[in-house]
Structures are given as C-alpha cells and as structure tokens.
C-alpha cells in the first residue's frame, strides 16, 4: 500500500515538470508587456530597459525559465509585480476562500447527483428518470455565468433571501458565511452535478442488472437495502473517478464564479493578475492550480484502493 503511494508520487515528477514548461511558455508567448503595464505606454526606452533588467526580462528565455523553476522547487513563486509581495504568500491568503467554495460545491453536487442518479436508475424509463435526465442535461449545458446571473436576480434581487456578493470567513460568522456560500457553490456545482447524476445512473443500471443483486434479493434484503448497500457501493468507484477528473472544470468554473460573486479566491486573483499583466502571479496561480489538480487526482487514485479491493491487491504485487 505504501509502496503504491510512493510509486504514484514518483510518477508525479515528470508530470509536474511538463506542466511548469507549458505554463511558463504560454505566458511568455502572450502579447503585451508587463513593462507597459507598470510604466504606461509613454515611458522612455531607457526607463523600460531599466525595469526590464530589474525584472530579469532581458535575459535569455531559458535562463528565465531555469531561475523561475529553481525558485519554485524551493517554494518561491516569485514576487508580484503589482503589490511587490511574494506570490506564494498571496496564494496562501486567497486559498481558503477557493477551497471552501470548491469543497462546498463538490459536496453539494455529489450529494444531490448521486441521490438523483440512483433514483433515476431505480425508476428507469418512467417520469422520475426522465426528469432527472432533463435536469442533468440542463446542468451540463447551461453556462455557469448565466446560471449565476439569473440566480442572483432571483434569490438576491427579487426574493432577497441570499446575499449576492462577498465572502465571510467560516470562523467569523458561520451562518452568514454559509449564506454567502450558497449561491456561488450551487452555481459552480451545477455542471458537475449533471455529469455525476448521469454517470451514477448509467453505472447503477449496469450494477442492478448483475446476479449479485438478485442474490441479495434472495437473501431477503429489501429493495432499498439492495440498491444502497450493494449496487450503489459498487457504482461509487466510477463516480469518484469522474468527480476527480471534473475537478479541473470546477477550478476553471471558480474563475467565472468568483468574478461574478466577488469571491476573494484564486480565480479572482488570476483574472486580476492577467488584466494587470502581473506575470509572476499569473504563472504562480496557474501552476498552483495545476499542482492542486494533480494532487487531487493522486488522492482519487489512492481512494480507489479503499473502494475497490481488486486494485488494492494489484498494488501489492
């Protein structure tokens, strides 16, 4: 088991290296110069060269990459051009808000979607099933920003039951924090929920057709026990995989949702940094999100071994 985990962590190294290359070169290819952003378009050539030298932008691109990557290995993501603070410090400041949002939206969508998918599978073909399928399709196809704006209109403007923007820390005022959390997390989770519901439904339909389900019925288990204790348990592995893979979508959704709901998280930080051409911050945030995504996938892989005893055995060999 430990060997399996170490093995998986070693596999991460080349992945992370390639990711850092991609992040760095994309930023280098983007037109627009941070010097313009700092000095304005009318600055003299000498002043621009001075700032360039100060930022290290006059060096060979390879040297730039190596010094940047070298810093990252030691935990130094560089310094923000706009605020002058270390990027890592900024990321850690914004991280809790994004984590809270991502965690809440995953929790809500997994809970609702697994339940809905299971109900749909059990009632395959009748109106409950069709209702779930239509709702899932809507969740997947409706853009996040549209759902977000409409839900602000409905819940904040017309009904006035939920706040439309802002973030309150859970530690300060849990109730108010949850009220602020409700709209953004539901909007962010809608697409994920649609996907999970469809995945759960198809996997459950397959599992329910297997012989062990009839065995469980013959044992005298009630239909609900058969569904939840046997079939759902065997369906979960697919659902967990899917949820893990969809985390990337969740994080990209965070950029939009955080902007609409004025949520002070990593997504907002990335957008602000892009508009101000704050290269080190953009690179830092994107790379950090990529790290995060890879890390969660590792957790998903490890969680298989608990969900699926067959993989556990494979790991030992």
């Amino acid at each position, binding site marked *: 088991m430990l060997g399996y985990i170490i093995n998986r962590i070693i596999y991460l190294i080349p992945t992370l290296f390639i990711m850092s290359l991609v992040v760095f070169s994309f930023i280098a290819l983007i037109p627009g110069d941070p010097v313009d952003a700092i000095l304005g378009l009318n600055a003299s050539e000498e002043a621009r060269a001075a700032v360039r030298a100060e930022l290290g932008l006059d060096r060979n691109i390879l040297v730039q990459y190596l010094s940047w990557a070298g810093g990252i290995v030691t935990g130094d993501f560089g310094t923000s051009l706009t605020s002058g603070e270390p990027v890592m410090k900024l990321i850690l400041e914004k991280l809790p808000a994004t984590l809270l949002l991502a965690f809440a939206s995953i929790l809500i969508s997994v809970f609702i979607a697994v339940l809905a998918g299971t109900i749909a599978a059990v009632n395959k073909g009748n109106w409950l099933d069709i209702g779930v399928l239509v709702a899932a399709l809507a969740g997947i196809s409706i853009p996040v920003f549209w759902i977000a704006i409409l839900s602000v209109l409905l819940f904040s403007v017309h009904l006035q039951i939920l706040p439309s923007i802002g973030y309150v820390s859970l530690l300060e005022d849990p109730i108010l924090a949850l009220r602020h959390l409700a709209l953004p997390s539901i909007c962010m989770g809608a697409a994920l929920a649609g996907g999970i519901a469809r995945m759960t439904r198809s996997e459950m339909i397959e599992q329910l057709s*297997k*012989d*062990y389900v*009839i*065995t*469980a*019925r*013959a*044992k*005298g*288990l*009630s239909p609900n026990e058969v569904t939840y204790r*046997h079939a759902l*348990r*065997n369906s979960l592995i697919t659902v967990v995989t899917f949820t893990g893979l969809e985390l990337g979508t969740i994080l990209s959704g965070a950029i939009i949702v955080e902007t609409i709901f004025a949520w002070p998280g990593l997504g907002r930080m990335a957008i602000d940094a892009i508009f101000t051409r704050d290269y080190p911050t953009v690179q830092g945030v994107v790379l950090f999100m990529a790290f995060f995504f890879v890390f969660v996938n590792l957790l998903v892989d490890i969680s298989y071994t608990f*969900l*699926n*005893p*067959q993989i556990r*055995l494979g790991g030992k060999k």
Partner: protein
Amino acid sequence: MTNESPLLRVENMNKVFPIGGGFMKKPLELHASRNISFTLNKGETLGLVGESGSGKSTIGRCILRLHEPTNGKVYYEDTDVTALAPRDMKAMRSKMQIIFQDPYGSLTPRMKIGQILDEPLRIHTNLSKAERREKVLETLGHVGMRTMHADRFPHEFSGGQRQRIAIARALIMQPNLIVADEAVSALDVSIQAQIINLMVEAQREQDLAYLFISHDLSVVRYMVDRVAVLYLGSIVELADRDSLYNNPAHPYTQALLTAVPSVKKADRQKKVYLLGEIPSPLNPPAGCPFRPRCERALAACSVEMPELRDIGGGHMAACHAV
C-alpha cells in the same frame, strides 16, 4: 416416491414479459413460461432441463418471486407464496434459496466473504455478532473452505471456490429448498463433480429439496430423482429419472437424449436429429409448440396444444402422438 404433502407445489404458473413498447405503443408479449404445474417433495431433487430460452431460469426465479409470476400459484407447504406481503415474503426467503450459474457475478465484489455470509443472518436472526461469526466460519468449513477465507474478497478465489461460497451463502439459513440455476454449468468437469457431491452431502444432512435447473443431461441424471423437460416455456414431459432416461415418450425428449454423447458403443443408438431452431417465444407456433420440428406430427398437433397427461405409471407427457 411418497405421496405425503409436497414441499413445493406450482400450479398453472405463467410468466409473460412485456418486450419493447413505448409511448402509445403496446409492448409485445413474451410467454417465458406457460401453465407450469409440478410438485417437489421434501428432500427430493427435481431436474428442470431444456434448451436455452426454454424458460428454465424464469421458473426458478418466479418460485422465489425474484420475478413476479404473471398468474398461477406457488405453494410452499401450505403457504401461497405468490400472495405473501413483503414482510412475510422476507421471512419466507430464509427457507428458499438460489444458487446461480456464474460464480463471478453472483457475489458482491466489494464485500468480504464473511460479510456476504453474515448478511442473511443479520436479516433473519437475532444472533449476536460473535454468534453470527461463529456460524459463518462453521458454514465455510462445511463447504470445504477455511476460516481464514472469511476475510478475503470474492475475486481472490477460483470459480470452484466461489461456487462453494455461493453454496455456503445459500445453506447458511438452513433452507428447505434450493433452486440451483445451472449451478455447475460454468465449472470444468472435475470441479463440477466436487460441487455436485457437496450439494448431495448437504441434501442428506439438511433434508434439502433441490430444483436443479440444467441443460446438461448427464449431470441431471446423476443428481436428480425426477425430471421435467421444458420446451418453449411448457413442460412437455415429467417423469421419474429412470423412466424418463430409459423410456422417453415425447419426441423432443427422445431427440435430446440421443444427443447426449456417450463412450459406450451400445448407447450410440440410431440418433433422432432435430431440425431447425427453437421457435421465438414472441411468436410461438399454433397448437403444439414442438410441431414444426417433430417427425411424428399429426393433424391435431397444429390445432390443439397437447395437455400434460399420465401415460402410465406416473410418467407424464404432453404429446398427441403418444
């Protein structure tokens, strides 16, 4: 054969599956079993043989109400199983069990053997956790498995071992009736013999009755007391084992028996070959379902479905020509 009150009595049971259909469209009707009647005594083994698609498994599952029979009655001792409320049916399930063909699909893959065997005890008894565990280990021992196997997962075992576990699962509630649905068909021959012997042993110890569903006539001959032959959802012949194997009356049974391979030269009698395929149960022929493939078909056969009747000495056959 004794004439005491039977353990299981099936009366005119039918099962119709709706096929297809949809909005404003009537589904087709598939008659998987028609007018099935038979009895099964305590401690007896009744073989149910027929080609694939003849409705063997449907009958087994309808008896346990894993499918609901469309109409007809199933009596367990004097209880009408088809009329039981869910709560009473749950209690009834501990007396009737089933073993499936595929030992790879019939055990929940995410549960340990101990948990799989524990579940029925948890549902049907008030035993404490320790008592249940003891019973689980004891039953594992019965089927020739070791106690350490209780903490393993199904995928760690071979097909024969899994089938032992499936049998242990069926036996653990000490049922009086087990439906063995092609229980040995997926195993290779040497393992088949072990499993059959295990089943026979359990029968002797626990006064078990088996409904032994199989397409393998040699295995059935070894295992059963009486045989029912199915064709397209109906019983065409029902008799004592020896009577049926030595003097098959129905042309279909005759054809089936000559198809059994044998090493003895004397057994290689003139073969009766069957022409064509089993008709679709969605569109069965009029009259006798076997008529299109029968060499001895009479005029009456295409008009009237023959009834199962006694042709002497309790040997029942459904054929106009006999």
